[in-house]
């Protein structure tokens, strides 16, 4: 009975490896980040946006999914770029002007110019 109890609690005596591994087995591993992020944005809303284009007839499910994922990457990218501007101003809060600066500075964001009035 005693042996079973120690085996069940499983801990401080038996160290299977570096401390980091023990919690990883309980919490879902951050190593496969793509698994957790697989679709954060609701596909229905993305689909609504896609359908808003009068030239688009149909869009496959995979296309919608990739667009959602691309939008997430875009948000991350533009947030980080805007943050650089905020850092230069020694601020810890992202302001609207940081975004505007990022849009002007980065060529890839050129399509956003003139969208915000």
């Amino acid at each position: 009975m005693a042996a079973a109890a120690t085996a069940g609690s499983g801990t401080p005596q038996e160290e299977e490896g570096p401390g980091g591994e023990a919690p990883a087995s309980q919490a879902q591993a951050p190593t496969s980040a793509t698994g957790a992020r697989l679709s954060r944005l609701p596909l229905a809303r993305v689909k609504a946006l896609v359908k808003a284009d009068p030239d688009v007839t149909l869009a496959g499910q995979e296309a919608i999914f990739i667009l959602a994922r691309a939008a997430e990457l875009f948000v991350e990218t533009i947030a980080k770029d805007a943050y650089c501007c905020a850092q230069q101003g020694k601020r810890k809060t992202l302001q609207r002007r940081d975004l505007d600066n990022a849009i002007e500075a980065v060529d890839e964001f050129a399509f956003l110019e003139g969208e915000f009035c």
Partner: protein
Amino acid sequence: MAERPEDLNLPNAVITRIIKEALPDGVNISKEARSAISRAASVFVLYATSCANNFAMKGKRKTLNASDVLSAMEEMEFQRFVTPLKEALEAYRREQKGKKEASEQKKKDKDKKTDSEEQDKSRDEDNDEDEERMEEEEQNEEEEVDN
């Protein structure tokens, strides 16, 4: 056109979460900046859709597919997105395959269950009726005893 397509916004909560995870701890974002990013994301999707649609039309297809979107990313100079998107697509396809197999399995199980459940239900109804009759008889007996 009364409503501009940009009005179709993505949920604020999700946008906020993505932004916060992209930035280091302790960094905040103003409401204006957040809603601006949300609108930018919508515009991004619309622009990407339009580009992707061009590729689809070139291929004489009416349905946008994944490769159209990937080509659009390159066209829009977001090549750095292409690799992570390809990985995400692989994972998504695997997940869809798994889901399909799981739902087919569930369907089979459900069919088996409904058959056996119907038999159980009819049995239960008979039992209930018997119990009611028995209770009435007991009450009658008690009254007699009291008297």
